[in-house]
């Protein structure tokens, strides 16, 4: 009977076999831990699903990057009368690795110079660590940021380097610690407030909007609030409605806030560093599904200016405008369109407030057609805003109505097929482009 590496978290694609807890010839009982597996988020014990004898361990300890589904051991059935249940995947029910597990072709990061391959997660961590080294006033607070190393491992290693004074685990008290962070910023510090996910920041949105965003104005310019509110935003995988929502439009609505939603690792790093240095309150929207993705990141000091969009892929027939994980969808759609001889330009907004209107309009002036791609609801969305810009300021350049391709206008369902149907996908983008060509 094969033991396969199971998916131990909703977004796991690869794992590390950290340690074997059994050796060949050992008898194991159902439920007994047989190995320690490290995922992108945690270290988890893998349990035997049935009684048996370890026949062979097929993967040496310390093997990294094992795709989910890899056969890692073989168990022989035992002769005590119970035939082991024939199962394709003992252990936790394994899923086939999703298509996105294939490496994404590297795309040129901004600027010349040497680069190295890094995950978005590592890039974010490095951004924080570099800024904390540079400026004593910068500290991180949030749930599980210190000893647990981050619920999504984004703050991994920060506690060891900076200690408990600057890496602060909070109680589960979003409204309270968001307000406390604002007060600390008023008091001259530069807090980075991590929300475990942005869904939970709804409990704190009063302080983000009323206390952080408005105070500079209300105080006649006396009191700045240099703070970064960050965390994963948008749909993750199979976590359903209350844990899957894109709040970009909510925050982008508010004067006084800066709203950033990067796609790749280079932008994640460069923009987070810029956000930490900004004298304005920044809402920094990450994406859980992108955390483990790797991209080329410039080595050395890397800052990306706030408020500038970026052309990820030049083209001349149509502009696909997007941000965050929507860029991924747009790039895939652009590949598919290219196969049909249609050249699509992919514009990554990167910053949603301030919105780089000039970049939107320049691209429109080249392609004369536009489709906005957003992993989020359609109504009153960032897509709606981009369409308004195109209509108000780029009307004469338009050869066709601007289209938006978004998630379905429903709370995100759990069932795998319904979830797939609800989320924005490249085929929808391709269809929208073809409809306006």
């Amino acid at each position, binding site marked *: 009977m094969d033991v396969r590496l199971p998916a131990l978290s909703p977004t796991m694609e690869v794992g590390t076999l950290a340690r074997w807890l059994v050796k060949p010839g050992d008898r194991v009982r159902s439920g007994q831990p047989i190995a320690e597996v490290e995922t992108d988020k945690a270290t988890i014990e893998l349990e035997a699903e049935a009684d048996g004898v370890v026949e062979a361990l097929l993967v040496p300890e310390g093997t990294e990057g094992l795709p989910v589904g890899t056969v890692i051991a073989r168990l022989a059935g035992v002769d005590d009368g119970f035939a082991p249940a024939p199962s394709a995947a003992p252990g936790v029910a394994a899923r086939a690795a999703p298509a996105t597990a294939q490496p994404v072709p590297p795309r040129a990061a901004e600027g010349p110079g040497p680069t190295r391959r890094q995950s978005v997660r590592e890039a974010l961590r490095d951004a924080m660590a570099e800024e904390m080294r540079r400026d004593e006033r910068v500290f991180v607070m949030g749930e599980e940021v210190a000893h647990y190393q981050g619920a999504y491992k984004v703050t991994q290693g920060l506690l060891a380097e900076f200690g408990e004074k600057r890496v602060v685990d909070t109680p589960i*008290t979003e409204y309270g610690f968001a307000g406390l962070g604002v007060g600390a910023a008023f*008091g001259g510090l530069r807090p980075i407030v991590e929300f475990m996910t942005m869904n939970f920041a709804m409990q704190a949105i009063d302080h983000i909007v009323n206390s952080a965003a408005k105070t500079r104005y209300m105080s006649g310019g006396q009191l700045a609030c240099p703070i970064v509110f960050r965390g994963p935003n948008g749909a993750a995988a199979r976590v359903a409605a209350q844990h899957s929502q894109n709040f970009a439009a909510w925050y982008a609505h508010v004067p006084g806030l800066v709203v950033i939603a990067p796609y790749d690792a280079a932008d994640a790093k460069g923009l987070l560093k810029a956000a930490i240095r900004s004298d304005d309150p920044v809402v920094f929207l990450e994406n859980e599904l992108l955390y483990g993705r790797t991209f080329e990141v410039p080595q050395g000091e890397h800052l990306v200016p706030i408020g500038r969009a970026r052309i990820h892929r030049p083209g001349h027939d149509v502009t696909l405008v997007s941000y965050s994980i929507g860029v991924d969808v747009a790039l895939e759609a652009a590949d598919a369109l290219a196969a049909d001889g249609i050249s699509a330009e992919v514009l990554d907004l990167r910053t949603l407030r301030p919105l780089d209107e000039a970049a939107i309009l320049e691209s429109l002036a080249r392609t004369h057609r536009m489709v906005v791609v957003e992993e989020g609801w359609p109504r009153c969305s960032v897509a709606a805003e981009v369409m308004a810009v195109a209509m108000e300021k780029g009307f004469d350049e338009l050869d066709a109505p601007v289209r938006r391709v978004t998630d379905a206008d429903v709370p995100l369902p759990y069932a795998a097929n319904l979830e797939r149907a609800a989320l924005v996908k490249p085929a929808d983008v391709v269809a929208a482009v073809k409809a306006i060509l």
Partner: protein
Amino acid sequence: MARTGSAGRVRQAATPAEPGRLDAVPEPERYVPTAQEYRAFYRLMLLIRRFEEKAGQLYGMGFIGGFCHLYIGQEAVVTGLQAALRPGLDSVVTGYRDHGHLLACGVPAHAVMAELTGRAAGVAKGKGGSMHMFSVPHRFYGGHGIVGAQVPIGAGLAFAHKYREDGGLALVYFGDGAANQGQVYETFNMAELWKLPVVFVIENNQYAMGTSVNRASAEDQLYRRGESFRIEGLQVDGMDVLAVRGAATVATDWVRSGRGPILLEMKTYRYRGHSMSDPAKYRSREEVSAVREHQDPIDRAARELVELGFATEDELKAIDREVRAEVAAAADFAEQAPEPDLAELFTDVTASGTPWT
């Protein structure tokens, strides 16, 4: 109303059945002021009262708009507490009933009044108004219009003091109504957990708009609200500036010695309506006039100043004249000062000064 003429603590918060559950805060003494100090307290209380009366008049004349919450009756609270702070170091934050706090922090009356009339010379350039005033040079961090929001903000200011190791503390004022906000308890928990240097002050003026404490609070002894977070509480006669000043010494000593937060419940009373549009249906005229007649903090200070030989009647009258003149000048200034330039509409939105579209 809490007892008067004594140390000010009515009851100590603690559950004696569990010794050591809370640390023992020393019994506050009623403060023994010098003549000069007591006269300064008297003058500040009077300034706040006359200022607020004038603000009420300007509101009636249409010079002040929107919500305007007067502090009349509560003057002893901010006067006694602010006197224990180290100006330029300690931080202060409160809610929307903030005019008195600004004056007590030393912000000039004309700058506060001009903010009320929405003028460029206002302490927030006319952009904040009555409820949202700030003065960073005075370490006054607002002026917050969302009930309870100032409480975690104040703890954050304390966090910054502790982080920077500058020896400062944060003084956070909030109302009896605000004391029912969930974020207050989220903050209590973190403040005690991290031993933040913060003095929480509940200004219990008996009402949140028209809702009396008893109608809104299951535990109406608000000084006990920190108990489950191991935060010591003291109940203080907030109508006696010397009782307040005495409690302020205990509280600030406690916090400065690194023992974490402390909670003061100031039993006080507001004479005027909640804001300028108050139906005055939820309490009787008799109730208000009884407090005014028997417990007024300014009358009491005046009597005592004379009894102690710290001031003559004539000297008190002279202080009154001086204060009236100061307030009248502030009002004249605030009526005549120019409104903000229209270009100010788009400044101060972000660090770059202009809003982004």
